[in-house]
């Protein structure tokens, strides 16, 4: 493209180059716009099509096998038809435990929010302490390492005994489940602050407070969010199990109640909801993390 333009410009001097330039610039830009749209479409296809295809295959197989006589689980067509009210009207409320899925999910999310918030605050504080002080680390780290392996539900009877009420017990289970990864990751982050950053802080003579929010917090935040993300996942895992045992409004008890009433189709619908909510929770925490670190975690 550029070669003929140059050979024209030499003999005729000033006039032709602009026209040659316009052609050279406009053509590729038109191409890239079309290409970009095409590329975008292709990328969407590449990302959306495979999961949709897999989903269709799985549902198809499920439909096939569960339609056989003597199948113990309902096929997807039956799940949808028998739970149509549950799917289409998540907001009904007939008092007591007879509520739409939305209210059950909200009740569970509320418990998770409270327990997780406490875990985040306490976890970051304890993690910072353990990361900063060698003595705190020596004293607390072995205890943390043992306690974090205790399964979440094993705490439930103890917390029921302590709180004498289901709701705070469930919240405590969330708290104790989510706190360990937050503590451990925060502590690792604080301990891994590069010596160079500390030297810079000493040369500039930052005060303790300035060091805290100008060096330590930004350097630790990526680690913190790794812990927070693991924590939210574990919380959502634990709430369903805890609610099955404590009863009341909540997605866990809804599943247990459906099982007791032999409403297998209801259980399947709820499992889909639980999975989707867990996915969204994980993405929210991850999104907040990238927002705060500006993607500058790595150097």
């Amino acid at each position, binding site marked *: 493209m550029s070669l003929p333009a140059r050979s024209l410009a030499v003999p005729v001097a000033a006039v032709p180059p602009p026209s040659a330039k316009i052609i050279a610039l406009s053509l590729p830009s038109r191409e890239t716009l079309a290409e970009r749209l095409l590329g975008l479409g292709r990328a969407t296809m590449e990302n959306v099509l495979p999961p949709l295809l897999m989903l269709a295959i799985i549902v198809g197989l499920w439909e096939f096998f569960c339609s056989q006589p003597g199948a113990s689980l309902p096929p997807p067509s039956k799940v949808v038809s028998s739970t149509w009210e549950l799917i289409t009207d998540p907001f009904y409320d007939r008092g007591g435990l007879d509520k739409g899925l939305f209210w059950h999910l909200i009740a569970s999310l509320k418990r998770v929010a409270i327990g997780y918030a406490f875990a985040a605050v306490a976890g970051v504080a304890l993690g910072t302490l353990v990361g900063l002080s060698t003595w705190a680390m020596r004293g607390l780290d072995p205890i943390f390492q043992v306690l974090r392996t205790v399964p979440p539900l094993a705490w439930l009877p103890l917390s029921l005994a302590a709180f004498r009420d289901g709701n705070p017990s469930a919240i405590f289970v969330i708290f104790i489940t989510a706190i360990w990864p937050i503590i451990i990751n925060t502590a690792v982050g604080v301990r891994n602050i590069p010596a*160079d950053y500390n*030297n810079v802080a*000493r*040369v500039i*003579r*930052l005060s303790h407070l300035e060091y805290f929010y100008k060096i330590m917090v930004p*350097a630790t935040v990526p680690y913190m969010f790794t812990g927070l993300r693991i924590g939210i996942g574990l919380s959502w895992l634990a709430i369903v199990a805890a609610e099955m045992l404590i009863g009341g409004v909540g997605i866990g008890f809804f599943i247990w109640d459906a099982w007791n009433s032999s409403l297998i189709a209801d259980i399947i619908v709820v499992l889909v909801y639980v999975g989707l909510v867990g996915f969204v929770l994980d993405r929210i925490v991850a999104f907040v993390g990238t927002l705060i670190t500006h993607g*500058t975690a790595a*150097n």
Partner: protein
Amino acid sequence: MNAYLSIENLGMTFKRGAVTSEVLRGIDLKIDQGEYVAIIGHSGCGKSTLLNIVAGLLTSTVGEVFLEGEVVDTPGPDRAVVFQNHSLLPWLTTYQNVRLGVDKVFKSKTRAERHDWTMHNLELVQMVPAKDKRPGEISGGMKQRVGIARALAMEPKVLLLDEPFGALDALTRAHLQDSVMEIHAKLGNTVLMITHDVDEAVLLSDRIVMMTNGPSATIGEVLTVDLPRPRRRLDLVADPGYTRCRAAVLEFLYARHRQPSLHAA
């Protein structure tokens, strides 16, 4: 004790458990105001330890460092350091990295004055166009320029350079050396630079301090480089004075004080 920066009978011994190792012994060095002094030696000779003691980041076992007659025992902006691996804070922009030090050192000045001073120092190292970039977005040479700007912006009495160009490729290094020479000519800073590059030492310094090998490293020899300034890289190639200085340093490092590991090999 009328020197600007005075290092007197300095010794450093590290203790790790039952093992003690003497790194430095009997270091005596006086540096005048505006002088550019390079410390050269094989790796492991304790030259970085010496610089860290002057910076106040380490405390010597024996001996003292005096700056304008006052004992140095803590780090401070009057002895700003340019670190080997730039040490910029990755979550701050180029401008913010320099401004952080400016805000701390010139608390009494107004916001506008501090902004102007930050910009002035970025200009000095030709980094104004990249002032809003983060360290992850600029090259190694540019990072080191920002590191130099950050140190200069603190108006240090002594500028400490810890192998500042060690991690850079040869061309970038030459560019930065020229920049440092220009800045030194313009501002007349007192500079103490650690290096293991003979050409760099001869090109930039008024005096070259040659260290013997550790353990118990000390100053082996001090060479005065009396080449006229401004010095130009190309002119110096054929300059007999330059060649003589270069030969003297090489002779010291490779004939009389070869690296112990090389001896063994």
